[in-house]
């Protein structure tokens, strides 16, 4: 269900916005303001059962636990984030 070319490509480094009051609220707080890498492009997902209207295109963005929480973990976090929450670096 991708229409236009996606704004980000696999491998792009992106920053999650710290706040976006009119965006959909499902960007978890722990990831806001953090930098990650786009690893998946899902386009606009048509889900009339769950939503009014269609949300902006969706990406999977991977983060390092180390950078997000400041621990010495080598593990990673993959979070699904909509276009309007992301800015290019």
């Amino acid at each position, binding site marked *: 269900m991708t229409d236009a070319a996606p704004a980000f490509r696999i491998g792009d480094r992106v920053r999650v916005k710290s706040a976006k009051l009119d965006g959909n*609220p*499902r*960007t*978890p707080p*722990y*990831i806001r303001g953090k930098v990650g890498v786009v690893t*998946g492009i*899902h386009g606009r*997902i048509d*889900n*009339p*059962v*769950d*939503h*009014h209207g269609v*949300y902006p295109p*969706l990406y*999977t963005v*991977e983060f390092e*636990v180390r950078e*997000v*929480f400041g*621990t010495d*973990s*080598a*593990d*990673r*976090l*993959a*979070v*699904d*984030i*909509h276009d309007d929450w992301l800015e290019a670096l």
Partner: protein
Amino acid sequence: MADTIIRPHSHMQDFEAHVRAVEEDLEYYRTKRFEPRVIHFHRRGAITFYDILEAAAAAPAASAGVQTVHDADHVHDTLEPRIRAVEDRLDAYVKNIALTGVPVRGNRMVIDDGRIERGDYDPFLRIAKKPHGGTLAERIAHLEEDMTRYERLLHAFTQALVIAGALDPAALDRQRAQAGEPSMRNGARIVARAWVDPTFKEALLSKGREAVRELDIPPGRLGKMGVAENTEAVHNVVVCTLCSCYPYDLLGDTPWWYKSEAYRQQIVRDPRGTLAQMFGLQVPSHIAVRVHDSTSDIRWIVLPRRPAGTEGWSEDELATLVTRESLIGTAEALSPGERDALRQLGAAE
């Protein structure tokens, strides 16, 4: 190493854990699934509290047929059957809530509405959960009483839907009979097919649920299915930190720990440590751990690695090695030996 803390397949060894699971589930379904719907319909005047009262008067709930034992002297003999009875009633409660998901007078409640009503986005709107406490016998008695009250409201609400013409009683009986078939067997079949059929696996990883149609698995309500493949380099695990999004139609009922604050908070902060501490799963240090947070419309499942010693196995046989936990990523698929040991345990009980 012995099995650690969480083994939902085992039969009732730990009464406390069973009671706690029912307490958590019951309050979850009441405050997150059912009552937000009632409030939503009332707000919009589709089914009001007064409609519900009238429906209750017109069709009183049948007694649940469960006699409540309050006599503390012989509680010990009766604990286990009483726990099983509340578990069964919880199952029925959950299924009957699902049957109320119908549009009324053009008002369809979408999942977003439910999230708003139940306070996912605004804690102010959350419905208070009932605190639990006391001895085990007291807690079971509380559950029995709560269940009766909760069933009564659900029954009245369902009747109000029937009176409003939103639910057809005959169709309701049919649906009731069929309810509850989503189970982790669907997820297991997908994994087993992917293990034997590389073309299917490719399609699964790139297209998700479109690939699954060929297995006659009902499409369900998933927005989109995401499959995270475990490899020699990465072990995947799924969580929903915001609420408890879960691929219900592929994996069946959500395990209680998946909804627990402990799991949802710890797994993202210390993935490897949480797998070890909560689930006894030691991921070797050369394998990276990747947590998928189900924050949007993608419902992630894990494609576990095929266990060794299964060369030449049929798809059906392979599917018996896939557990719900392995599909969430808090365990590996069973080895043939582990499966046989579990079967023996089951036969012995």
